[in-house]
């Protein structure tokens, strides 16, 4: 690799899924019109919220664990380069190979070449946000390679030619009836068909997926995964999952390729232990997840014979370089912040345009792409703070959103809002003028009908479309004070 000078690059355009086609408010409006989506999401997030709350509340030292989770990540990020080099040494020492990918294009090229070298045209995949982020499946398809998702929810999304809408439950926007219809319609087209009388019973649906996937597991010779963690001291990778499909992919094929964001490294097994407590409780609301797979290099006669680790930057170094944004790299993708977010709950994941939706997506996507490429996401929050409260690594998302908003404003040209904000600030710095301005707000009484303001011109019409405003009072507070308590 050549020497790298200057500011690290952001995630490139035209590849992967970190940018949406529509600004958030427009995409959200579409989503809000979908009553089925809202009821699916409302039910699913309420269930998972309650489960999480119960298993977090029972941990006596949750606050301490959470602080440790934040501190370990911060320490890693402060010296990320050395931890990654240690990880590389250990992976190589145990018979694996390590590839460094500056961005999505490089990572896709590396993985495509590796698969090509095996001569295979089909690969099985473990659920992975990172490969969604870089658009790996699309890149493989262009090279004539079919990537088959094996996580149940990812399978549903793939069969329906849909996009994931949640980082843990990618098909959270679908209910059972929709899933049954997708299975019946699509499974036979690409492999083992769904049983003829498939019902919407969860057990039957899971069994249909099992039968469909089993054929894939048994024939696949190449698997692609992400990673939840990598332990630098031994070069061990870890995938945390619920279904066991990951375990199949990680052990059956001959070649395993893992694509991992560079922020996933932890120094030691002791550090890993903290996250293995934080993650399942925060994500699925379980004390412990059913399957935690860990592997270190290759071992003849046990699992894959070839192991490749692709370390992905794709805007992460740029995020690390930003003192206001780097805490986003602590994220362990538990999705607790999505499940408590009142905005996410109502609009779902697609409205965010990126594979990373919800509160963390509103921060992480603009950090990876640069705020200029995702200017509406930092505003997609009422700053209610519920996300920060539940985050197991204490990412202060509201404060980061506010900072990103100032970056968006700084990068945008003159517009009416800027002039209005400057004007208001100018008046507010002049108490006498401000006193007069407050009195003048009484003019708005002219807009009143039946004791309230029901209609205002743009941009305030956005308020009055669904909400009344009270009539301004006849006397401001300060005028009352001067009248009753003496002169200014």
């Amino acid at each position, binding site marked *: 690799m050549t020497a790298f000078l200057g500011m690290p690059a952001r995630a490139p355009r035209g590849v992967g899924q970190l940018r949406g086609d529509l600004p*958030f*408010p427009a995409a*959200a*409006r579409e989503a*809000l019109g979908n009553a089925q989506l809202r009821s699916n999401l409302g039910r699913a997030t309420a269930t998972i919220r309650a489960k999480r709350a119960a298993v977090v509340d029972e941990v006596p030292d949750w606050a301490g664990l959470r602080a440790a989770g934040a501190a370990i990540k911060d320490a890693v990020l402060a010296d990320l380069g050395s931890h990654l080099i240690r990880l590389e040494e250990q992976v190589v020492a145990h018979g694996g190979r390590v590839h460094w990918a500056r961005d999505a294009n490089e990572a896709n090229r590396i993985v495509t070449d590796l698969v090509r070298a095996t001569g295979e045209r089909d690969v099985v995949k473990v659920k992975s946000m990172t490969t969604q982020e870089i658009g790996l499946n699309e890149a493989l398809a262009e090279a004539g390679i079919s990537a088959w998702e094996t996580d149940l929810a990812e399978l549903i999304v793939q069969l329906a030619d849909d996009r994931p809408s949640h980082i843990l439950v990618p098909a959270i926007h679908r209910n059972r009836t929709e899933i049954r219809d997708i299975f019946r319609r699509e499974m036979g087209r690409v492999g083992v068909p769904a049983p003829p009388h498939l019902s919407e019973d969860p057990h039957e649906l899971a069994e249909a997926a099992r039968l469909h996937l089993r054929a894939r597991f048994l024939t696949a010779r190449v698997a692609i995964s992400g990673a939840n963690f990598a332990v630098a001291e031994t070069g061990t990778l870890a995938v945390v999952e619920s279904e066991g499909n990951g375990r199949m992919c990680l052990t059956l094929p001959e070649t395993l390729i893992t694509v991992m964001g560079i922020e996933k490294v932890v120094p030691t097994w002791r550090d890993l232990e903290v996250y293995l407590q934080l993650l399942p409780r925060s994500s699925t609301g379980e004390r412990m997840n059913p399957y935690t797979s860990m592997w270190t290099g290759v071992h003849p006669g046990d699992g894959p014979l070839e192991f490749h680790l692709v370390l992905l930057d794709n805007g992460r170094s740029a995020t690390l370089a930003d003192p206001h944004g780097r805490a986003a790299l602590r994220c362990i993708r538990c999705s607790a912040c999505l499940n408590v977010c*009142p*905005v996410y709950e*109502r*609009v779902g994941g697609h409205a965010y345009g990126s594979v990373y939706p919800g509160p963390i997506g509103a921060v992480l996507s603009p950090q990876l792409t640069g705020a200029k490429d995702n200017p509406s996401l*930092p*505003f*997609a*929050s*009422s*700053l*209610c*703070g*519920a996300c*920060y*409260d539940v985050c197991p690594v204490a990412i202060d998302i509201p404060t980061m959103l*506010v900072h990103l*908003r*100032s*970056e*968006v*404003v700084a990068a945008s040209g003159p517009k009416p*809002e*800027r002039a209005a*904000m*400057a004007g*208001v*600030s100018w008046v*507010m*710095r002049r*108490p006498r003028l*401000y*006193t007069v301005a*407050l009195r003048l*707000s009484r003019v708005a009484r002219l807009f009143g009908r039946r004791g309230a303001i*029901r209609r205002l011109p743009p*941009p*305030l019409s*956005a*308020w009055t*479309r*669904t*909400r*009344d*405003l*009270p009539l*301004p*009072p006849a*006397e*401001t*507070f*300060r005028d*009352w*004070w*001067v009248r009753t*308590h003496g002169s200014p």
Partner: protein
Amino acid sequence: MRVALFITCLVDAMYPRVGQATVQLLERLGYDVDVPLRQTCCGQMHTNTGYADQAVPLVRQHADVFAGYDAIVAPSASCVGSVRHQHAALAARSGDDGLRRAAAAVAERTYELSEFLVNVHGSVDVGAYYPHRVTYHPTCHSLRLLRVGDRPLRLLHAVRGLDLVDLPDADVCCGFGGTFALKNADVSAAMLADKTASVLSTGAAVCTAGDSSCLMHIGGGLSRDGASVRTVHLAEILAST
């Protein structure tokens, strides 16, 4: 004790009765209340909309106006949250260390009304009488930024004649969020619809909270729906006798 009222721009312009109630309550409890008239706005709207540079002069003005008081009380968790959690950072951003210290000193002595009553005044019974069925909405900034906890509820429990009913999903945001209500009006309205439905389900005659901004939002939704539930600030209930 020299207590200054930080009135907040919204109360000054739109809800003078909330300011009057705060003054009456504090005077009834024996405090000598002052309202420095050079105060204007804490700059929260500018900060949260991305105009931090326009907020810095307002931080300077705020720190200047309120220097020297023993306690600064505001009937708004949101504005106190801005003073406590944003002013020092904004001052640091401006590179003015003196301002950072001045802002921090003011922030330390700034209290949201329920905090002042419970922690400084030291009593939950403020002698109020309010014979109505009331439900309380804990605003996001009182709950998660200031962590006022159950202080407002304890104050309400001590009000004579008051019938307090629980609000379902109380801790969920009403969808106001400052300019969020305009920039993401559709999402904001969807959140509000759920909040007003919760309020109506309680059968309360009055919905109260510690922030006039959120009450303006909830009240605006209730009024548009023709509901008869009134929105009344906590200060107004505590000032009633």
